[in-house]
């Protein structure tokens, strides 16, 4: 039991270059700007484009975050790239009742049965949204919207400023992608 009550732990699975680390950083900045305590860090190491990577968020609405170790028992797992589902044990250590939030064109039920996931699954076709809104299949901001909706760790409005800070001229489109992900994620 490493869980402190007000603490929410989110583990992101993606591939190098998909923006998992950037996204965790934006989420942490937004939570901190709300006055909460939060942490974002990557699975440290040399970044290799395309290789499976993890990134981590801890958000605590009440107390400073003290644990500095990888998240091995997350409350939520986020999968940016559906091709990871049969390669990485994404649900490893996921707490009972913990959600898996997946970028996929398939349904939650389909994902659960295909990959034998015994957890609630939330799905969003982030690749499609990203292609339509951003013109490229970079799903991190779209998935961020889905994650905000499912986890409720921050107010949706709080993410705009970190997105603006990170993306500058293309911030508007990323905010739109985030909002679309927020609206379309299905449980």
């Amino acid at each position: 039991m490493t869980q402190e009550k007000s603490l929410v732990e989110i583990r992101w699975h993606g591939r190098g270059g998909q923006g998992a680390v950037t996204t965790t950083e934006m989420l942490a900045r937004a939570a901190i700007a709300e006055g909460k305590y939060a942490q974002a860090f990557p699975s440290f190491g040399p970044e290799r484009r395309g290789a499976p990577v993890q990134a981590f968020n801890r958000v605590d609405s009440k107390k400073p975050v003290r644990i500095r170790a990888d998240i091995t028992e997350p409350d939520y797992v986020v999968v940016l790239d559906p091709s990871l589902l049969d390669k990485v044990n994404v649900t490893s250590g996921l707490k009972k009742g913990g959600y898996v939030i997946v970028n996929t064109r398939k349904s939650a039920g389909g994902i659960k049965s295909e990959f034998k996931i015994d957890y609630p699954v939330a799905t969003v076709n982030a690749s499609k949204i990203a292609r339509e809104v951003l013109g490229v299949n970079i799903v991190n901001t779209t998935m961020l919207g889905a994650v905000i909706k499912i986890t409720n760790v921050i107010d949706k409005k709080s993410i705009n400023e970190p997105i603006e800070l990170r993306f500058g001229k293309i911030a508007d489109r990323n905010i739109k992608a985030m909002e679309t992900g927020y609206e379309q994620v299905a449980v």
Partner: protein
Amino acid sequence: MATRIGVEVSIAVADAVKLCNPDVIAAYPITPQTHIVEHLAELVANGELDAEYIPVESEHSAMSACLGSAATGARTFTATASQGLALMNEVVYVASAMRLPVIMAVANRSLSAPLSIWCDHSDMMSVRDTGWIQIITENGQQAVDNTIISFRVGEDPQVLLPVMVHLDGFNLTHVVEPIMIPDQAEVDKYLPKNRFPLPLNPDKPVAMGGFAAPAIFMETKWAQEVNIQNSKKVILQAWDEFNKIFGRKYEPIEKYQSDGAKTLILTVGSSGETASVAVDELKKEGMDVGQVRIRLWRPFPFEELREAVKGADVLIVMDRAISFGGPGGPIASEVKAALYNQAKKPNVVNYVISLGGRDTTVSDFKNIIKQGVGIAEKGSKNEYEIYGVRG
């Protein structure tokens, strides 16, 4: 007013350096320190920081440039890690012996071989005897605060010593977390101008770092030793004054739930707060356990350590480095030395953990504490224990 922001710790440390208004930064990038000097280079290039940024060709040159800079009375900063610290080693000794207040952030990382970019404390321990003041931080806020504090301590006319601020590579440097960035006016109030007493100046020539025959060498070394020992009172004053202005308190040995506890875990660096969570959970389970942490590594806080652990029966000491073929971890061997002549002292059990970035979780710390108590009771044939190594 200070501003609370979510920021990567490396960037915050660079911003803290900017608040101290350095004159010269000479540095060579090395993982996991790179973001600190990159951000400083950016601040200088953008005109946000009026300093000379010297992009040198190696760490040896970085420290050499820092010596020259500090000798002119310029406020001087650099940062490094691991192999970089090893490469600059011979010049590191010179900075302290010449009483040059260079401030250096060290993003702790293991030493090769095998090549590892991840954190342990072997680099920090490799410079233990170089005569620098060494402050070890545990989170981003401490790294920011102690960067500012270091300029005040090192440049104090009673001290005039270089200071290393240690922050664990990746475990601190690459984490985004909430940090209070102090206000410029507050830093200006806290940090006086650098008034180096005998600066290099062509109009008033001085000789520095001369040759010492046997008739004088020992006296210079003893003077250096007396000087660093005496720096402790200035460090304590600097921490005290910092607390008055900024409301955050630092001590050479910091205690957590330790008063009256029969078992204590001693931690160093960024895993300290993870260990605190383990202490809380074990206390809930009914165990009588507390924690002490080393904030000041050089000069070593003998009195404060003895005072902090005197009531304990078992002291479990964490080390993130090995003294090969030696007595165990460097921290534990020092702690044992500090306690050896005491009439009442705890049984010291030493664990080497987390080498080369190996993760140590809350449940690992709980295991270590429980196992450590068992070893203290039953004894062990080992000089020290190593945690989590596959046989």
